[in-house]
């Protein structure tokens, strides 16, 4: 399992568009991916409901974990979504 912490860049935080891109990325990898606030509980990154209810805002840190055969590719994909302006 690997873990990374990134600062959320998209203007509206983890809402509509970046959230659905993130879920898409998590679903398209075999590894189990989680996301959570730096200091809180993580949730399943394949669940739109869970991801949007985190309420992570722009400028806040998000802690990502991935566990599986393609774990580093999965985190690369998600990191690039979270660090690109919308």
């Amino acid at each position: 399992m690997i873990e990374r912490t990134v600062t959320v860049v998209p203007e509206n935080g983890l809402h509509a568009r970046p959230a659905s891109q993130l879920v898409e990325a998590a679903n398209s990898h075999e590894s189990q991916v989680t996301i959570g606030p730096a200091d809180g509980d993580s949730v399943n990154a394949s669940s739109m409901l869970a991801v949007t209810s985190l309420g992570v805002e722009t400028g806040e840190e998000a802690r990502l974990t991935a566990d599986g055969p393609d774990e580093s590719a999965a985190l690369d994909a998600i990191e690039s979504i979270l660090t690109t302006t919308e």
Partner: protein
Amino acid sequence: MIDEPNEKRKIAGISATPLSGLGTARWYHPGERPDPDAVSAADPKTELQRFIDAQTAANEELERERELTRERVGDKEAAVFDAHLKFLDDPQLVDSIKTNIENGEAAEAAVKHAFGNAIEQFEAIDGTMAERADDLRAIQDRLLRILSGADRTDLSDLPQGTIVLAERLTPSDTAKLDPDTIAGFVTMSGGRTSHVSIFARSLGIPAIVGAGEELRAVRDAVTVAIDADEEIVVAHPDAEVRERVTAGHSLTVQSGRVETQDGKEIAVAANIGTIAELEQAVDHGADGIGLFRTEFLFLDRERPPTEKEQYEIYCKSLNAFPDERVVVRTLDIGGDKPIPYLDFPEEQNPFLGKRGVRRSLGTDSDLFQTQLRALLRAAAKGEGTLSVMFPLVARLEELTKLRNKISHVASNLNAEGEEYQIPELGVMIETPAAVLMATEFANAVDFLSIGTNDLTQYVMAADRENEAVEDLHDPRHPAVLRAIDQVVEAAHDHDAWVGMCGEMAGNSELTELLVGLGLDELSMSAVTVPAVKANVGDISQSEASNRCNRALMKNTKSMINKVINQ
């Protein structure tokens, strides 16, 4: 008697237009859905399969809508469908729906409860989370609609020659109908002055309203004739009926002003709501536009039209009538024709609530300002003469506020270096208050325009959509006729011109009475313009005025009718 399914069957209704037609029946059943909790559950395996099928169907719909939105609007707007697709497959939601089904719930109840919990959680959090709750609600509705098998007929994409049958059609339903492809429609509810009838007239399509429960006996896909003269719908029409309804009887279109025999010029203008109807107005020889119902520009969309969009539409209508007047009525909305992106408070009686200028001067003031900017700019640019009138004015104070608002908009445009012109201004006379204040209003503006549908409704206290009081909803009642007479006199005493833009103006049996009342302009659905123009030429102003005076002295509708038909 047992109905033979293929036997000719006649159903009486009310002709909304003078047009007849022949076509293929197609029922439209919007939103008739059972309460999810009232659906009885089959075994869990069947219910699970029902849910999975609905989920697949919803997925297909969303993908199709996403592509359409991407093509027509843009990527950013299409993104909302991505979010919906993700929610639709959400493992948490799907698991909880499956659990509910295993616990014996029907697919409907399982969806309702699983989404309900998630919606509640989002609603408990402020801010952007409320939008997620809206997303979830939209997906929930979609799934429930698919599960119920409710109609998803796309009214804007019907085969050529369709006659739409429905219990009722809302303004947003009718706005989708394409007059070039549909052959007509028949509704179970509605009267001559209902929105649906006005709409049919403005588009010039055959329509029967108020056909009642009997209409349900007509099946999908059978041949149906609309006979406007007999005011009937005929299912399985025989050769004779077919021939009669397709024969047609068109009047010659006269363009240019018409005069009475003794030389009084009467402007016969058209009422429109959309640019499509503008063409109809030109084709039927209308002398300009007497009522442009701008609320139709705001219906059926996700956000209001921009200033530029409106400006272009107003210019287009002015350019269609370079030598005539185009009377634009500012946004007239209320709880009876709500618009999705605006807030409408729950009102006991929206017809007596926040509507017309009451909203424009209140909650919708930004929207109103945008509309005024577009209008003032179009007045300077378009070829014809722009006139602007305000709906549901009841007090002089409102008029003062409206004028201040226009001055404010004008000075802003001036500061921005935009070209603008202050148009001719008028007041719609629709309320008894406006009738009683007509003298003051005529003194303050350039023209008055009598909206007889609402005026009759308010003077007679008779809901125009309620068939139970349809007999009260008639402008030939002496109270309404005298109110109109009072308004015409007040206008002429103060050098204001006066027009009529309600359905009464287009009733060709009443043209003589209206000329006798002294109206300067009659504005109606485009299809009725040729008949009214033909009438004007046959009328003598002095005889009309005598007859009108006799009618005004009568004290019942039946006696007034006698004078009119003598």
